[in-house]
């Protein structure tokens, strides 16, 4: 029966939409809260007097040169800062107390300066002298402290004073200073990318990767990675830093010397290296043997880092790859059980959950024994741990353990927490769908749950049972005779909907089907939309089996459902069925009762399957993607590179206390058209940076320049392959839905409109069923001739016509204003 099947499908999408709505509401409310930010501003009012009070306190303390009073006042400033109060107003007073031999006071003042320098760039110049003096101190700790602080001021206007100290720091005798200087390079490059260009900084950092001190190595690697990433972003170099082969060997052999965090960092670099330089088979075995002992480490980050590396290097060795899942199974369970808090266990569970998609029998295999019991919930587990444990349990269910798992899940149903109960009931049904051997047992358990007579349990069971019966229609015989009794038990719309669906689906076996339906039709207006839509289908189906009893009922139903004020979806469906029946009852029966494929066991419905997404997440093993169950392009937003252009001037000597005039000039340079160079990280020419960095004549656009009018190239040309490549590589810049109202645009009208009004040429268009799709593209001549790609999907079926527009462009997220303008022009 095709139609009814579709109903269910639409049902799920309707649920999705409702969900999306509610989540965007959530965001709106949090956005509004942010805008108002009642908490800090309230405090600011309250504390304004105190800030003034502090001002005086700081002044008198520094005038009296009373170290005790000074420190007390500074401490108060820092504690206000911690509360999130605005203490930028105290900047000049804090500068007055910066000159001190007291290390603690120094640290506090530097902490203040680093947190507030951005709002006082000019005054910050006043402290540069003191910091420079400290950078030359005999005590390496003071040198390191000063260097770290001066680099953390995040001010482009002092960059040229800082750079010489950073360079000197890189070859300091103290490893503490060297590591600080290495990180300083990354900091400096972030605020003033041009600064370090001429100094062969990357070569110096390369040398530091072989430093004796492991922290220096870790920071040098981090700096190399950050700097080259940004240079790629700026278009100055084409490839990202990747550890070159000799260095990889060096790091691998020294791994043990690093602290646990350093080991994690090095492993991440090595993994990236092996992706770009796949090792020989012999070497792979060597790597596996060398790192195997790390799987017994107590730090889960380290173990997952090793697992990730193993997965990467053995990807093309199917035998070893499969064994790997068995090898890491035990250590992961131990880490999960030994975790110091639920959070750590949760992260590991998320990874086990993901791995089960690659190796479904990881825990079902006979070698795993009773390991599945480790995923049983503990009473004190928080909800997020219980949820994922239940998910895992349903995934590892196999003939040998399915009954144990169902028994365990049944325990959670009565445990009290509604969410856990729902999850457990759904889990029981899923286990049944995955393991056909236990379908009878599952059916019995579910009937048992229904007989408990508790609303929330019955509701969840009804929903779960509907899915279960779609897989095993033959099981329906057990529940159908009783079904009419359950309507009184459940109130939840999806549960009632499921019951209605079951009545319609098995109407030939439900004796009192017409009377059950009659009751529902009588109270039609009390039911939710979801139930009403399903009721329509159920009645029509029953009509074919029991025409005499249903005729009156279905008439009443059509009357109610086609009322002009009903929901358009319901209204249109009712009309559809009505006309179908009017036209030819036999033909209608053939269409509505069409045969349909039972859902194959395995517990997977078409709407749940998204192997592509799972593969993508698997590539991001040991990252946040795994926790969210989403690939990173959905939540990672690359920040645009620094917008400050930097022109080298001869360093001006600073006279203490006098801020010099603007030290650098922000030169707005008209953007020069340069072809997009997508960050292809496949090249391994990682040692040639220094030469490329020499000609840094490219200036990023200035953020504050007035928005140019959007102009598009007149006759854009692009072939489908280019389009496809560009489309696949870019993230969505804008995505919106346009209401069409009563118009019914065709592909040709849309094509014409986009071409004439927006300068977007059509690449392809077509119609599939009620859906039409168009692909357009154009080049923004006012923004370096960068391409803009537009996809329009029109849903013309049903009453709600809409156009969904997605825009992609390399100009996003760097220049959101351009894509925004295009979005606006399309909306017009």
């Amino acid at each position, binding site marked *: 029966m095709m139609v009814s099947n579709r109903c269910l499908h639409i049902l799920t999408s309707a649920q999705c939409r409702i969900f999306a709505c509610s*989540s965007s509401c959530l965001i709106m409310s*949090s*956005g509004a809260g*942010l805008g108002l930010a009642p908490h800090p501003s309230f405090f600011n009012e309250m504390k304004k007097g105190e800030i003034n009070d502090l001002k005086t306190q700081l002044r008198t303390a520094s005038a009296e040169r009373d170290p005790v009073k000074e420190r007390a006042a500074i*401490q108060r400033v*820092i504690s206000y800062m*911690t*509360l999130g109060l605005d203490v930028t107003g105290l900047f000049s007073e804090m500068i007055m107390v910066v000159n001190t031999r007291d*290390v603690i006071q120094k*640290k*506090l003042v530097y*902490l203040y300066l680093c947190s507030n320098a951005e709002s006082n760039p000019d005054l910050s110049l006043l402290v540069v002298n003191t910091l420079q003096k400290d950078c030359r101190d005999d005590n390496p700790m003071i040198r390191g*402290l000063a260097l*770290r602080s001066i680099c*953390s001021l995040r001010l482009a206007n002092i960059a040229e004073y800082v750079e010489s100290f950073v360079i000197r720091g890189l070859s300091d005798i103290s490893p503490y200073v060297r*590591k600080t200087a290495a*990180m300083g390079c990354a900091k400096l490059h972030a605020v003033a990318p041009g600064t370090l260009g001429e100094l062969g900084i990357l070569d110096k950092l390369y040398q530091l990767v072989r430093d004796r001190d492991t922290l220096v190595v870790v920071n040098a690697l981090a700096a190399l*990675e950050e700097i080259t990433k940004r240079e790629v972003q*700026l*278009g100055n170099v084409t490839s990202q830093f990747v550890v070159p082969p000799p260095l990889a060997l060096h790091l691998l052999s020294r791994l043990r010397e690093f602290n646990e*965090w350093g080991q994690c*960092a090095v492993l991440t670099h090595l993994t*990236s290296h092996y*992706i770009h330089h796949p090792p020989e088979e012999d070497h792979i075995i060597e790597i596996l043997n060398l790192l195997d002992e790390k799987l017994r480490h107590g730090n*889960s*980050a380290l173990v997952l880092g090793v697992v990730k590396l193993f997965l990467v290097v053995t990807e093309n060795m199917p035998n070893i790859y499969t064994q790997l899942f068995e090898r890491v199974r035990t*250590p992961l369970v*131990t880490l999960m059980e*030994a975790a*110091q*808090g*639920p*959070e750590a266990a949760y*992260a590991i569970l998320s990874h086990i959950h993901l791995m089960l998609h690659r190796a479904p029998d990881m825990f079902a295999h*006979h*070698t795993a*024994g009773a390991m599945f*019991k480790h995923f049983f919930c503990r*009473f004190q587990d928080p909800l997020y741990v219980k949820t994922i444990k239940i998910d895992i349990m349903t995934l590892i269910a196999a003939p040998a353990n399915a009954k144990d798992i169902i028994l365990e899940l049944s325990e959670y*149903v009565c445990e*009290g927490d509604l969410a856990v109960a729902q999850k457990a009931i759904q889990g029981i049904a899923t286990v049944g769908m995955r393991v056909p051997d236990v379908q009878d047992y599952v059916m019995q358990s579910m009937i048992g749950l229904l007989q*408990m*007579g508790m609303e929330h349990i019955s509701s969840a069971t009804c929903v779960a049972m509907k899915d279960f019966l779609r897989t095993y229609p033959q099981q329906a015989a057990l529940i159908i005779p009783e079904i009419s009794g359950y309507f009184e038990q459940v109130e939840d719309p999806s549960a009632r909907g499921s019951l209605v669906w079951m009545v319609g689906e098995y109407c030939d076996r439900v004796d009192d089907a017409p009377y059950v339906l009659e009751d529902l039709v009588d109270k039609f207006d009390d039911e939710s939309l979801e139930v009403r839509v399903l009721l329509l289908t159920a009645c029509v189906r029953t009509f074919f089996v029991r025409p005499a009893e249903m005729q009156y009922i279905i008439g009443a139903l059509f009357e109610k459902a086609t009322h002009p004020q009903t929901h358009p979806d319901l209204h249109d469906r009712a009309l559809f069925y009505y006309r179908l029946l009017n036209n030819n009852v036999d033909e209608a029966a053939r269409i509505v009762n069409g045969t349909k494929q039972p859902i194959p066991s395995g517990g997977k419905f078409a709407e749940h399957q998204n192997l592509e997404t799972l593969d993508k997440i698997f590539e*991001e093993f040991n990252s*946040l993607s795994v926790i*969210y169950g989403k690939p*990173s*392009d959905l939540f990672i937003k690359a*920040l*645009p590179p620094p917008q400050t252009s930097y022109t080298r001037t001869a360093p001006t000597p600073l006279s203490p206390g006098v801020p010099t005039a603007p030290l650098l000039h922000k030169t707005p340079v008209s953007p*020069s058209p340069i072809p997009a160079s*997508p*960050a*292809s*990280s496949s090249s391994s020419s990682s040692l040639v940076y220094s030469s490329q960095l020499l000609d840094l004549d490219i200036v990023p656009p200035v953020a504050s320049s007035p928005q140019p009018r959007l102009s598009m190239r007149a006759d854009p040309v692009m072939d489908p392959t280019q389009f496809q490549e560009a489309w696949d*590589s870019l993230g969505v810049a804008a995505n*919106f839905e346009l209401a069409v109202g009563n118009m019914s645009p065709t592909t040709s009208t849309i094509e014409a409109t986009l071409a004439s009004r927006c300068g977007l040429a059509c690449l392809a268009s077509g119609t599939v069923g009620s859906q039409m799709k168009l692909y357009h593209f154009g080049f923004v001549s006012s923004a370096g001739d960068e391409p803009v790609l537009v996809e329009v999907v029109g849903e013309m079926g049903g009453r709600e016509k809409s156009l969904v527009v997605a825009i992609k462009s*390399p100009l996003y997220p*760097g220049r959101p204003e351009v894509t925004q303008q295009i*979005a606006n022009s399309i909306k017009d």
Partner: protein
Amino acid sequence: SGHHHHACGSHCAFCWPWSMFSQFFILNPKGDSIIFRDYRGDVPKSTPDVFYRHITTLKNEATPVFFISGATGASVETSSVDGVNFISIKQKGLYFVLTTRSNMSSSFGIEFLASIGKVIKDYIGVLSEESIRNNFVLIYEVLDEVIDYGYAQGTSTEELKSFVFNEPSVLVDRSSTQASSIISAVENAITSSGKKQVTAPGRASSRPVIGGSNPSKDREGANEIFVDLIEQLTVLCAGNGSVLRFDIDGSIVMKSFLKGSPDISITLNEDLVISSQGDRPSTYGSVILDDCNFHECVAASMETFNSDHTLSFSPPQGEFTLMNYRVSPFASGSSSSDSSSSGASTTQPLPFRVFPFVDIVAPNRLEAMFKVRGDIQGHGVHANNVVVKIPVPKSTQTCNWDMDYGVQGQSVEYKPTEGMVLWTIKKFGGASEHVLRLKVLLDSPVAASVKKELGPVSMEFSIPMYSCSGVQIKHLRVTERNKLYQPHRWIRYIAQ
């Protein structure tokens, strides 16, 4: 012009999991930030508010790792925290949070947060809002060193020592006086109830590891090391009292106040077998560990551990978990290698057994009896602060109970909001038995489910000087060359 699009290929640099944080902060239970440190300036300063609002809105549905999407659906407009990820852990009611724009390893974030918590605790003695507020300057010093520009540096308490100048201000512990003997230390440990909090024991080891930068300030007798063997039991019993599941998660937690860098060797029982390493039990009755893992410091002696059961290492200062292990004593591993032939191992019985009896006496009245039998072997061994938690049905109206006549040191409390009866037994001797009778009056007539709702019963307890798994520390040697060195070694066993 600049080309800074996010070309997200298969191994894009932006999505590559570099572990890099933007901020670190600690929030108290009310959501005030008591520590806030920004490392990269690429995330708005309002994040603590956003974090707190998120977790309080979602209540128990909140996960410790999340992002707030600003781009669901409609526009280029993004909320201020778009692209910001939050990773948090909750310790002693405080939220330790870090934010990041990188798709970093979540485990790295969580483990690192826990380490920061550990370092802070090493320095200031206890983790509490009060002690953090009192020592916030010191904590900022620590935070300066453990993270630079969002990258993890070192979290070794002892290496940080030379960079931290503040003296910790230690809270005066009102609950106890000088803890000079191990017994009182253990007693204190027990008063700080809760799951794994027993690792934060009494006064003796809740003092900071660091007595300031001035070594002369180290207290006399401070040259000591504490070793805790903590075992957490998970037991699932069927209605008839038979054991469905029995797992032990053990750990050896050390807290070192030792001066210098002495070598320590710890030897565990000889009959120890680690099944995940392919070992087979040699003799009947050996202690079988399903698996174990170790702290960084024992990396060198890990290879020989399988044969000599000895760990040699130089302990880091402060508290750390030397080893974690898993034991499933009753596993009937018929065909498993993970727990193969461990069915033979019955080294220790369950310390407790619970026997529930439920009667439906009237349509809306239940009577239940819970009998708890102690099976702890050994002279003078007893459990402390045993809490039996009995969930009662949702429809419970009132709840009455009575205990055996004349019992002392027991109390019962009904918590309607949690739907739970808590039965506390202060001291539970080795071979003894306690009974609680419960009368429950329900709102509605008894449904079939109600029997199921009376349960599962869980128990919390600690048994000093008792190891359920049979894992024992046979030797603990501290060796320091060229010195007359007399450290104090405290070893205790706690079963939970």
